[in-house]
């Protein structure tokens, strides 16, 4: 009862905040009075509904979702693996850590332009998303490995746990919360960088390509509609991922 009440309170708070900002947006749109500069939420909503019915929209959403998701998963895998390797080997740490720090700080646009020289326009967003995700997962996973409970590790050594048992019983429960938080943050970044890569690389039937076309044709309401779609897809994917990890991690909660 308590939980359902607090849930409905939270939902009401979010709904009221959303309504407030939609009202501000609409008021601003009325004040500007020019759809080219700032279309209102009603017009953007209508455009989004119109777009949803088109085959091109579904194809673009599917292609972008697939590319960014694959890039995200590859980045998560590579980042986690590199974290293990650089944590376990000082030599690999000396080799890879500067590279990963460089990737983390260099401007994403530079990578996109470079990738365009080497890759097809379809694969650029995927690779860029992966490149942006990997350093986040790397630093967070490595930090969690370094902070693993030494007293429990010593206990595992005393009782001669196998490597797999030590990982499963000691490292994994301590890694999961860090890893989930990093992956959720990286998911947002994968969308941002992936769409930015699409806007520059212009692959066929992709959200970024449609964003670019909308800007070119000064179709601002469509630009807003595509942006709303990206936000919704990113949010839904992030929520799905967080819930999935929460379910997997439930048995490791202390």
């Amino acid at each position, binding site marked *: 009862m308590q939980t359902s009440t607090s849930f409905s309170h939270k939902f009401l708070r979010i709904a009221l905040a959303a309504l407030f900002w939609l009202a501000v947006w609409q008021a601003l749109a009325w004040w500007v009075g020019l759809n080219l500069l700032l279309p209102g939420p009603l017009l953007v909503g209508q455009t989004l509904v119109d777009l949803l019915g088109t085959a091109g929209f579904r194809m673009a959403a599917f292609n972008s979702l697939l590319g960014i998701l694959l890039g995200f998963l590859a980045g998560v895998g590579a980042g986690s693996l590199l974290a293990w390797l650089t944590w376990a080997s000082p030599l690999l740490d000396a080799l890879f850590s500067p590279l990963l720090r460089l990737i983390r700080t260099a401007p994403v646009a530079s990578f996109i332009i470079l990738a365009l020289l080497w890759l097809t326009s379809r694969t650029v967003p995927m690779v860029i998303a992966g490149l942006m995700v990997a350093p986040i997962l790397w630093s967070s996973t490595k930090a969690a490995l370094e902070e693993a409970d030494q007293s*429990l590790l010593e206990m595992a050594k005393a*009782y001669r746990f196998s490597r797999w048992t030590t990982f499963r*019983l000691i490292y994994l429960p301590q890694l999961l919360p860090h890893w989930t938080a990093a992956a959720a943050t990286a998911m947002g970044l994968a969308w941002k960088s992936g769409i930015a890569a699409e806007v520059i690389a212009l692959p066929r039937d992709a959200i970024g390509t449609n964003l670019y076309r909308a800007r070119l044709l000064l179709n601002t309401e469509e630009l807003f509609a595509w942006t709303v779609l990206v936000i919704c897809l990113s949010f839904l994917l992030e929520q799905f991922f967080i819930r999935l990890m929460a379910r997997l991690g439930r048995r490791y909660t202390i």
Partner: protein
Amino acid sequence: MITFDHVTLTYAGKHVLDDFTYSIPTDRITCLHGPSGCGKTTLLRLIASLVRPTSGTIHGLPIKPALLFQEDRLIPHLSAEDNIKAVLPAERAHESMDWLRKVGLADDAHLRPRELSGGMRRRIALARTLAYRGDFLLLDEPFTGLDADRVEQMAALIRETGTPALVVTHSKHEIALLGGTLLPLSGPPLTIL
């Protein structure tokens, strides 16, 4: 016999053991008794091969030592039963409940360490050590947080295993309960009195 042959161990610039030579019998329960910080725990850690001597050698180390740490070191997300199972091979996993029964915690098998009192956690840690079936027990203050009755029960349980042991204790009463030989110590560096 576990023989320390001119063993020196330096930790953080301090000689915990300095040219220490002594043989510890492995056919009985030996109780280490001495002031805090004299090097008792270090002696146990050396025998468990968790630390290596800075110089000197140790002969006759046990093949499978079972170490009860000074702290409980239970895995926090595992139940009491699973903490014991964690040190058992799959074919002996069923023994975990027997051990919980022996330490009087069968009804709390499903509880996690944070849901148990300090004394209950200590008994689970002890059950885990005994369930491991080592060939030599290394028990660092095994009765911390237990009331007098429980100390007697747990001491009897240790004796019943018939496994030789090296036990760190501050209590002469506990030494008597364990039927152990007293080894008075001082230090650092560790010295047999």
